[in-house]
């Protein structure tokens, strides 16, 4: 018998993999039956509300919760930051109240008497001079490669500019939080809104003095995480403590303002940069100093990956300065920190191209030799250019003509990501009646993990997607990777394919013995076991040969057997209209061309890219945290003033999944992060192309567009 090898099927032999398959939990979600942590209502559940600090920095001077304790309906009060504690950013939780109803909990919060002693604060993330005077800066390193000064002298084209990208928040639709319920004195059941089902139990157990084995974490659905929901968090532990004090289950979800203030941010970056090229347009020099903030820790976007994607630029100086601000701390934000790196690199290259009088497309193309995947980028750029009609629609920056106030332009940018498979273990169970189920402590953030799991096993066993029962979202199942960094689809599909094949081979051996056919002639398709293409028995009959007990196989990953790999490219192009009288930017069309190895479900894969583009429109045009330096407060921490695009704001979106056989052969590579990375830079470049003026800082709000137009300089 030929050696049995773990691999995906040949591409042409797939029934399910690579096609459009609707998600298996779609009806549950769309009809409102899916239960999130925020929806858990076990009998007697109390509701928690928070008292938060509103200002830049202070010490808690007095705190009196006596009246809160006596407020009708209030069952427990928990102090996060008592007298003498420093509260160092707007939104810091001071205390929480749990009561029979949310309204009574609000009464309780209002009954708390607190006074503060104000301390100096600094919240401006862009003003490097001011931050230096305020002693809020620290050097974050610098390094050199090549001979910058000599190369600058030798260069034919030199461009200097200032660019930046503001802090944004994660703004998960379901705020951070949990529902906690004790089972006796020492066993805790938590419904947690988390990207990390397998890893958060211990984070409750430690502070609560429990054995980690006595903490059950459940998360069947999560209403957005984007990198901000890996931890139990102090408010998760506090929920358990309130529950213990009250002797009742408690649901504690952050309110919207607090969610935005402390639930996670994406660090900002502002940069002074000089870039230069030789007469042929080869970029020879990058010289930059950037700064920004991640909150009190005072970091900014990392130094090591500038200039983004074009690491091969031979002469390079780079330097970073961090600003410590009294603002909510950063957390990993989808593709950290690539969107910011891209925003302060692809824009600079675009302006250099303009200075050279060249077509931006040509300069990006010419310099692909300095990127990690020149061939893939080149192919993707050609496809993108056709889809957006670059050749016909391109004009030099600001030279599009047209009599009216609305100017149209094109822009592009490119990105990269890793997306290796995460470490996951799964159990695959095949029952003697043919039923198939799997268990793994993973989570479906909305990327379609649950569906991908079902497809992987169904494809392996020749069954339908509905024939596989998927059990995820509980920490009693085999350990799965936290979902961050685009590692989950690879993380789960590898172990499932391995375990599935091992189970299938055992079943093949039983069928071969029973029906006197060679085991290596067998395939599983359409609910049947076939030998050399002819039906031998049904899947159910084959499983009946297992005897009375189910077959159980463990799968592990990642392994170097070709099921998964890493590294993607990806390009995006934007066609925008800018009203130079109002400063309003409208998206006409966005094109994304994205590779990602083998695609398991093309429908949900495309959704990831659409979603990336739309999140990209948000941070490119409207979304930002606005801090008030006088009061130290985050003044737009609500959904009226923190502007996200709505359904009419997205223009035409064109997604092209780059899928030559060479991609399929690479195995599964993560996709969640990459499509959000280059959208901002592509849009910014399109605005520069439309108007002939660079709007230096994203988001390109009407105010920033008008200010840049007033300045009139590209």
């Amino acid at each position, binding site marked *: 018998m030929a050696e049995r090898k773990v691999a995906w099927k040949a591409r042409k032999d797939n029934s399910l993999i690579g096609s459009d398959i*609707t*998600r298996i*939990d*779609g*009806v549950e*979600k*769309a*009809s*409102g*039956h*899916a239960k*999130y942590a*925020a*929806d858990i*209502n076990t009998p007697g*559940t109390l*509701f928690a*509300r928070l008292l*938060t600090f509103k200002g830049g920095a202070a010490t808690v001077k007095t705190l009196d919760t006596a009246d809160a304790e006596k*407020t009708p309906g209030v069952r427990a009060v928990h102090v996060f930051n008592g007298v003498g504690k420093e509260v160092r950013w707007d939104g810091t939780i001071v205390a929480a109240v749990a009561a029979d*109803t*949310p*309204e009574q909990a*609000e*009464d309780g919060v*209002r*009954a708390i008497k607190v006074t503060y002693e104000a301390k100096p604060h600094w919240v401006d993330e862009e003003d490097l001079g001011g931050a230096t005077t305020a002693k809020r800066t620290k050097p974050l390193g610098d390094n050199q490669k090549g001979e910058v000064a000599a190369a600058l002298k030798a260069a034919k084209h030199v461009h200097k500019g200032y660019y930046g990208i503001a802090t944004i928040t994660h703004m*998960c*639709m*379901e705020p951070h939080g949990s529902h906690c319920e004790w089972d006796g004195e020492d066993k805790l059941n938590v419904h947690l809104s988390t990207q990390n089902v397998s890893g958060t139990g211990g984070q409750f157990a430690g502070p609560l003095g429990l054995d980690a084995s006595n903490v059950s974490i459940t998360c069947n*659905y999560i*209403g*957005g995480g984007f990198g901000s929901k890996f931890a139990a968090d102090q408010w998760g532990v506090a929920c358990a403590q309130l529950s213990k004090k009250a002797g009742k289950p408690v649901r504690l*979800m952050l*309110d*919207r*303002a*607090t969610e935005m203030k402390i639930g996670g941010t994406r660090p900002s970056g502002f940069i002074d940069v000089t870039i230069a090229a030789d007469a042929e347009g080869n970029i020879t020099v990058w010289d930059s100093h950037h700064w920004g903030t991640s909150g009190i820790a005072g970091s900014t976007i990392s130094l090591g990956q500038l200039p983004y994607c074009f690491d091969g630029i031979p002469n390079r100086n780079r330097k970073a300065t961090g600003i410590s601000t009294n603002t909510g701390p950063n957390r990993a934000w989808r593709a950290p920190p690539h969107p910011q790196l891209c925003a302060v690199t692809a824009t600079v290259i675009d302006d250099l191209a303009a200075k050279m009088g060249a077509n931006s497309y040509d300069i990006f193309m010419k310099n692909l030799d300095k990127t990690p995947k020149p061939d893939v980028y080149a192919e993707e750029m050609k496809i993108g250019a056709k889809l957006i009609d670059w050749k016909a629609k391109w004009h030099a920056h600001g030279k599009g003509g047209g009599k009216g106030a609305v100017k149209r332009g094109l822009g592009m940018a490119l990105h990269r990501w890793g997306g290796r498979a995460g470490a996951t273990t799964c159990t695959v169970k095949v029952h003697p009646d043919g039923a198939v189920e799997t268990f793994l402590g993973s989570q479906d*953030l*909305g*990327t379609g993990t649950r569906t991908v799991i079902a497809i992987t096993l169904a494809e392996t066993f020749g069954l339908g997607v509905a024939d596989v029962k998927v059990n995820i979202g509980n920490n009693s199942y085999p350990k799965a990777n936290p979902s961050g960094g685009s590692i989950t689809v690879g993380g789960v599909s590898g172990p499932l394919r391995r375990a599935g094949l091992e189970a299938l081979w055992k079943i093949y051996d039983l069928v071969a013995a029973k029906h006197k056919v060679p085991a290596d002639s067998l395939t599983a398709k359409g609910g049947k076991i076939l030998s050399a293409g002819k039906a031998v028995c049904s899947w159910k009959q084959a499983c009946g040969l297992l005897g009375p007990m189910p077959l159980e196989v463990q799968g592990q990953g990642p392994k170097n057997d070709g099921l998964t790999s890493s590294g993607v490219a990806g390009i995006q192009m934007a066609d925008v209209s800018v009203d130079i009288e109002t400063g309003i930017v409208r998206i006409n069309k966005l094109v994304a061309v994205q590779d990602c190895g083998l695609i398991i479900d093309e429908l*949900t894969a*495309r*959704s990831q890219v*659409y*979603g*990336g583009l*739309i*999140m990209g429109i948000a941070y490119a045009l409207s979304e930002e945290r606005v801090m008030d330096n006088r009061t130290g407060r985050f003044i737009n*921490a*609500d*959904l*009226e003033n923190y502007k*996200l*695009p*709505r*359904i*009419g704001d*997205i223009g035409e*979106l064109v997604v092209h999944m780059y899928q030559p056989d060479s991609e399929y052969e690479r195995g599964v590579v993560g996709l969640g992060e990459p499509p959000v990375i280059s959208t901002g830079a592509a849009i910014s470049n399109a605005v520069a192309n439309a108007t002939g003026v660079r709007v230096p800082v994203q988001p390109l709000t009407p105010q920033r567009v008008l200010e840049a137009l007033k300045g009139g300089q590209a």
Partner: protein
Amino acid sequence: MWDRNDQNRSGPDFSRRDFLKGSAAAATATAVATQGPEEAAAANLKTNVFAAAATSVTLNVNGKNHTVKVEPRVTLLHVLRNTLNLTGCKEVDERSADGADTVMIDGKAVLAGSRLAIECEGKEIRTVESLRQGEKVDAVVAGFVKHDAMQCGFCTPGFVVATRVFLDHNPKASLGDIQKGLGGNICRCGTYQGITACALEISTGGK
């Protein structure tokens, strides 16, 4: 909204007596022969006076009557989610700027977080859960699944209700109509493409 330090009329300091003072003023207003619109509204208040304490309200939700005891300050959203366990409508932003709390009241799309439960007595309330009866699902729910108009799914039920009501009122909606008509809801994951495709497919009869 809890971020505000403003005096909240529903707080513990706002007593029944304060409320009655207000209604006394309203009663005086009825004596005025010529009423402006404001006075007329104040006069109406007289018949709508509720004590601050919990009161019994019968709500017709998804065809069934539920009698619940609620304080007048409690929103329909909280009663649906916390008392009746109909959690398809979501609490995303206390200002209802996002539309995730959209439900149907007498066939109209209403933000349940911006409506007091006591206002909804005698009305026909329908939540997203009513769009699925066992295996049978509404065309909008089916369309959302078909076009993958969801990711995390938290905004999805609100969008489904908004789409259902919008299409009921605009059965032949164009792309432009859809882009305006569904502008009251926010999705963070970026599922607008699928939602648009779903609504357009239904309004154009599958063409």
